[in-house]
């Protein structure tokens, strides 16, 4: 039935005169579980299904979407997309051109062992409750809030285009986490596992959530929160910074993922998210980082939250180097932006929409800092004086992605090659290319995928799930201790 409706939409907009059109039928199921202080605060499921129609008419884009899945409404939506495109043509300077892509007939499904939606609710609740209760048990007086989370997402989508593409995909991801908040005399300290903001997520089945072993990490997480209450504050100085993966993932996201989006560089996000310091004249020559820095946009990484078969323009998943030995070599792009720059390999396959009601925009897939040649222990042992920062707590970066400041939940002073003392309220700041230029070591033994399910971009706002493969890395001469 969904294909019939999608075909009705495609035929309608083509008959009206669209020179190109695509239709996405999407059905999203979600499950959110949250236990806090022993109480099931959130047991919530959601289902959203709809159709989005995108069309080029008179050289301009139009898009319309609806959740009313009746034939009459679908026809009306297709007509609306046509009408909106005609309106766009009233204020266009140039015609939209698309870089070529093969019109595929294909299927893709996230590989998994256990369907997270088929695991009994009780089992999932028991798992997060056990973790939360273990964290709370560390101290009735000091652990004032403890929470544990589970989240699962399944997205079934059918993509049809006027070029003949027909792609069926099912993307499944899940994960979770826990956090413990210790409070004493107005000092609030939080520790989270395996990452802050509700945990870590992979395109995978329930086996990924099980592998996190929340309960097994709950005591240590809570103990560290308590330990932070008596820790000294991060000093204000310039020093060597070592960032663990659960912080570096967001550093990569903000300071490499977003500025290498070609739509930003071309100015089409100027009204909200901003532009990019990586302007098109810098492509292929700009020294973004040290030779230790190699970053790719890889939609094929197993388990990555940004892993799929095809993007929302029907372009197959690709692995594109963005930064090669420190040099900026590629953008993340769409068919339209790739054509504007005459990129020889066409789109990077990064067009994604967060729902059937959203027009696809250039989004991150998995932005991965490739592993280096150090072991984490060697890296710390090799550091005479510095600070190791763990787990993101706050993040902020300017509209061209240059001036950033991050805060972390916990940090350690490093002296003479060993972790000497835990410190709190750790922050660091810098300018993107100077910071990555100061990177002199990247580890390889703790590299894994971190999932960020809350990347915001676009007007109207869209929230996308993206991944980051990172490990621990070291940076010299970084300003720390701002707050």
């Amino acid at each position: 039935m969904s294909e019939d409706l999608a075909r009705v939409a495609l035929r309608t907009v083509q008959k009206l005169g669209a020179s190109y059109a695509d239709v996405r039928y999407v059905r999203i199921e979600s499950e959110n579980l949250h236990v806090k202080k022993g109480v099931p605060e959130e047991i919530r499921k959601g289902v959203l299904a709809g159709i989005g129609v995108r069309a080029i008419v008179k050289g301009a884009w139009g898009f319309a979407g609806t959740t009313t899945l009746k034939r009459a409404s679908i026809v009306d939506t297709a007509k609306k997309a046509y009408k909106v495109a005609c309106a766009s043509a009233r204020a266009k300077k140039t015609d939209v051109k698309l870089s070529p892509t093969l019109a595929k007939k294909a299927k893709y499904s996230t590989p998994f062992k256990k369907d997270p939606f088929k695991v009994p609710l009780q089992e999932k609740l028991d798992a997060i409750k056990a973790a939360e209760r273990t964290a709370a048990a560390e101290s009735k007086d000091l652990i004032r809030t403890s929470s544990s989370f589970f989240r699962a997402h399944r997205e079934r989508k059918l993509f049809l285009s006027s070029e003949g593409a027909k792609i069926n995909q099912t993307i499944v991801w899940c994960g979770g986490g826990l956090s413990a908040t210790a409070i004493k005399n107005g000092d609030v300290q939080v520790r989270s596992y395996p990452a802050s903001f509700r945990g870590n997520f992979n395109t995978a089945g329930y086996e990924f959530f099980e592998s996190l072993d929340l309960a097994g990490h709950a005591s240590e997480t809570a103990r560290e929160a308590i330990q932070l209450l008596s820790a000294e504050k991060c000093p204000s100085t310039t020093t060597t910074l070592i960032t663990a993966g659960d912080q570096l993932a967001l550093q990569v996201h903000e300071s490499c993922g977003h500025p290498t989006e070609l739509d930003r560089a071309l100015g089409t996000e100027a009204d909200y998210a901003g532009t990019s310091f990586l302007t098109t004249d810098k492509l292929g020559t700009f020294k973004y980082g040290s030779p230790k820095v190699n970053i790719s946009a890889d939609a094929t990484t197993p388990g990555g939250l940004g892993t799929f078969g095809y993007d929302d323009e029907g372009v197959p998943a690709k692995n594109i180097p963005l930064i090669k030995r420190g040099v900026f070599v590629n953008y993340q792009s769409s068919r339209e932006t790739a054509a504007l720059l005459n990129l020889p390999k066409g789109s990077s396959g990064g067009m994604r929409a967060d729902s059937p009601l959203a027009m696809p925009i250039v989004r991150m897939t998995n932005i991965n800092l490739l592993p280096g040649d150090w072991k984490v222990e060697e890296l710390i042992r090799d550091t005479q004086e510095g600070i190791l920062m763990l787990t993101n707590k706050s993040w902020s970066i300017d509209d061209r992605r240059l001036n950033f400041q991050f805060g972390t939940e916990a940090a350690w002073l490093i002296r003479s090659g060993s972790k000497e003392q835990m410190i709190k309220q750790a922050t660091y700041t810098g300018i993107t290319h100077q910071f990555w230029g100061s990177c002199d070591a990247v580890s390889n033994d703790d590299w894994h995928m971190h999932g960020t399910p809350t990347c915001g971009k676009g007007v109207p706002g869209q929230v996308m799930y993206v991944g980051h493969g990172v490990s621990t890395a070291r940076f010299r001469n970084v300003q720390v201790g701002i707050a």
Partner: protein
Amino acid sequence: MSLENLSEVARKATRLAIKKGADQAEATAYTLVEDLTRFANSQIHQNVATHKEGLRVRVVLKKRIGDLAVGALDPPSILSAVRDSIKIAKLSPPNELFKSLPEPKKYTALRGTFDRRTAACDPNFRADNAKRAIQIAHDKANFVKAVAGSYMTGSSSFAVANSLGTDAKAQVSLAQMAVTVISKKKGSEGHGYYSGFARSTREIDVDTIAEKAADKSVKTIQPARLEPGEYEAVLAPDAVALSLYYVSNGFLATWFQDGTSFVKYNLGKQVFDEKFNLKDDGRDMATLYVSPVDGEGVPKQALSLVKKGFVDERSISYDSYTAGKEGKKSTGHASVPFIEAFAAGPDLVNMLLAPGDVSEEEMIKETSRGVYVSRFWYVRTVNQPRMILTGLTRDGTFLIENGEITKPVRNLRFTDSFLDVYKGTQMIGKDQERQTLATVPTLKVSKLRFTGVSEE
């Protein structure tokens, strides 16, 4: 679907849930229409028309709660939403902190919140206004390089019913325009921004929005580098509203109960300057998302958040669940479940900062050496109880010397406790400006700590 039909859906779902064995049930039916024309590089590049509808069903079986959201309002979807929410509740452990869904309360509907023409605005109207804004900006100077922005029209409507007798509804139309202008001269870029938020397209002054954005843009070419440090600051309404949005988390029951709210540690104390008076009032037509009721159908109360600089327990906003935990009544601040991933807990979307009696020009005149901030950007909370925020300035940052704006400066990063920043409120503007979640005037503060400078 009409508002009355949404009410019927909500009532039907509630009745059905009780019939199927729920002790208590609540249903919220909604439609969202969002049509948006977006432009960049002085042409339209994205243009969307979306229609979304949905239903949230919350059922209670002996303190076991099932919560389900579906993106449809047809009879089979209503039936499956009710069945599945009951299924979830049966499988859920009891939530002993849950007291009850809210009792029904009378409310008076608001007039003039919905403009049919705005809600069903033609895409050609938005396209022509985008074109007009682009032209006005380019007419400002021959070095205006690109104009970007968006014009949104649409509406949000919801109806909520519960088994205790709550039967409420609300509807607003929306018209919003934002314009960003980029100028370029001698290798330097200037950026300017201005916006308008209203419930009718008739209130969107396209010419003024484009003119103000262009004016800021051409004046910010070749910005100087200003050394970080503490400066007096004049904060334009856009900057005030964004920082207040973060500060307002401290007034949420969720933060208060978790011990992360600054109010918790300052009960009965004067935290801000005595001139600082902040309230949240969903019935005040000066705010954007006006509504007589909240997402649970509870009448919205006008809540004084800061009175003459003081905060106390009455500053806290509640929905029925967080209120029940403390044996209190909801203040009418439950969020509306417009999206399938709705957030739990209360929210503040109708804040008003009381105006003062001075003009922005007078504030600048009274500044010996300070910074004029048009906008803040990417603000984040670094420390919750001390409300330390970090973020950057954007789209028009200027140095004020001896009572005059003397030159544009590069974007600056600030990191400061906004309890301290607002305690240092010296002057409050006489004109309030409506932003999305708050209606606020310009503020002059005695100091804002800038901790970094961005590159041009």
